[in-house]
């Protein structure tokens, strides 16, 4: 008998649908320069809060795309699902891995506490106990708190991705998309304008507020350093800190991932003249050197 055949048929699975919007944007990272984004109005924390009471569930992402001559193909949609699932799973994995170590360190402090109480009762020079690693009491406490918040996500049985059917959302997304086309393509403040536009339309269609929140998550993600840069100690201060209180003593922070996946710019076609423009730039550059 294989492991997969041990299915609990009495388990009550609920279906949770989360909208996911393909939003026109211009991402700025090295690996996502100029891409659009598939972003969810819920951050991972909000999603976890929503799922707190659920026993076991199936997570279905409802994908909404603006109308385009060539919509996202099967492989691109599958990539969005894989990227989201991998980000969430990696996050949960790191939390549980570091917690395994941190729990033992906190227990170490609890024994230290027993010694402290004995010392307090037996002699009047009790304060020496604080010479011994008092910071162990708080080792990995932030991860512990995060694990408490996000552990409901481990009850997810399956994740899938569907085409969204809600007409109001489609309509709102089409309006947002056409507003983006009217903006100047080099505008550095385009995210502010998109958010303001969605905010102005919230009264007439509640889907706009979802789109606004999705853009706000994107703005937060754009302002922060990238996930890998946050994890690598690349500044001198971070290097010093990592050297003295590094992974041996302090548990590294586990960062909450954003539910944003870079996708193809749906307005981009290779025949739009951009390649010729780059050729001309190259030739100019070569002549200049």
């Amino acid at each position, binding site marked *: 008998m294989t492991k*997969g055949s041990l299915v609990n048929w009495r388990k009550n699975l609920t279906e949770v649908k989360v909208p996911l919007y393909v939003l026109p944007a211009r991402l700025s990272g090295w690996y996502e320069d100029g891409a659009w984004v598939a972003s969810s109005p819920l951050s991972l924390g909000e999603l976890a809060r929503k799922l707190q009471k659920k026993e076991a569930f199936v997570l279905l992402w409802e994908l909404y795309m603006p109308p385009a001559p060539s919509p996202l193909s099967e492989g691109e949609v599958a*990539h969005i699902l894989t990227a989201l*699932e991998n980000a969430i799973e990696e996050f949960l*994995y790191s939390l549980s891995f570091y917690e395994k*170590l941190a729990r033992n360190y906190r227990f170490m402090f609890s024994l230290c506490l027993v010694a402290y109480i004995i010392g307090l009762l*037996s002699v009047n020079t009790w304060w020496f106990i604080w010479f011994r690693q008092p910071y162990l009491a708080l080792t990995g406490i932030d991860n512990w708190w995060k694990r408490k918040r996000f552990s409901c996500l481990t009850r997810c049985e399956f994740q899938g991705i569907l085409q969204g059917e809600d007409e109001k959302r489609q309509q709102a997304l089409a309006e947002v998309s056409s507003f983006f086309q009217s903006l100047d393509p080099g505008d550095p403040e385009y995210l502010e304008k998109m958010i303001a536009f969605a905010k102005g339309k919230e009264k007439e269609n509640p889907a706009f507020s979802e789109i606004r929140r999705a853009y706000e998550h994107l703005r937060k993600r754009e302002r922060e350093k990238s996930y890998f840069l946050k994890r690598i100690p690349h500044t001198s201060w971070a290097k010093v800190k990592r050297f003295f209180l590094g992974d041996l003593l302090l548990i590294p922070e586990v960062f909450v991932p954003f539910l944003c996946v870079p*996708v193809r710019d749906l307005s981009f076609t290779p025949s739009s003249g951009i390649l010729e423009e780059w050729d001309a730039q190259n030739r100019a550059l070569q002549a200049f050197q």
Partner: protein
Amino acid sequence: MPRIELYKLFNKQGYTMFSPRHPFFPEERFAQYLRVFKGEPMEIFLHVEDSKKEEYLAHLPSDFLEVARDSQGYVVIPRKSPQEILEYLKNAFSDTFRKEDALLLETWRHRDFFYHYGRFRFRGFYGVLHRLFPIVFIMHGIPGFQPMAWDMIIGDPYFEDRNFLELSKHYQMISWGLEEAFTNVTLRIVENSALRILNDIVRQDRNGEGFVQAFRVASRVGLGFLRDFFWPATQATEHTEWTKFLRPPVPFVPWKESP
């Protein structure tokens, strides 16, 4: 369901596979293998520009086919059934992904063991002296130091050993998952239009600079991770726009090698 993605890229000579997995942050892969260990099946998504299976099978290596002499000319005889070819592919994935990930897993396992194995145990002659060091406090005549000393002698090694056990159990589960992942794997072939755009650009190869242009477009079509493929490809095979930095090669020997 744990998934590995593979992209079938055109590289001017033929096709090559690229998998967008980070080379030195292994958590993503380890999380997948842990899920396999817990009973979920592994899937490999092969992204191709055209989902027609014939097109995909046409670029297999030549030992799948046999060329024989006929009365009229040459004929091509397939040696293996499509089922056998798929089995062959599965074995190929197992040989590449599994090898690479087993190496990565061993590296990380030993790295963590190095940090945690017997961290508070000092072995050897000087180790004995170190272990007895708290006795200095005890014999000093202040009985209040005793609880701390015993905590250092008994408590710390105990909890650090538990850490070590936790780690070895954890990595054992992952390696079992890794073994299981490629015994029962599903291969799915999906069509990806962003990949088609990039492959077309490389195929077109304007001014002999197809890789540079694909490199520039890759992030815009949402496949930015392919920059890790296109950048070395353009540096190795094409003239870049930065001719300024080109240098004549340093001679290996100071005299002329051949007349």
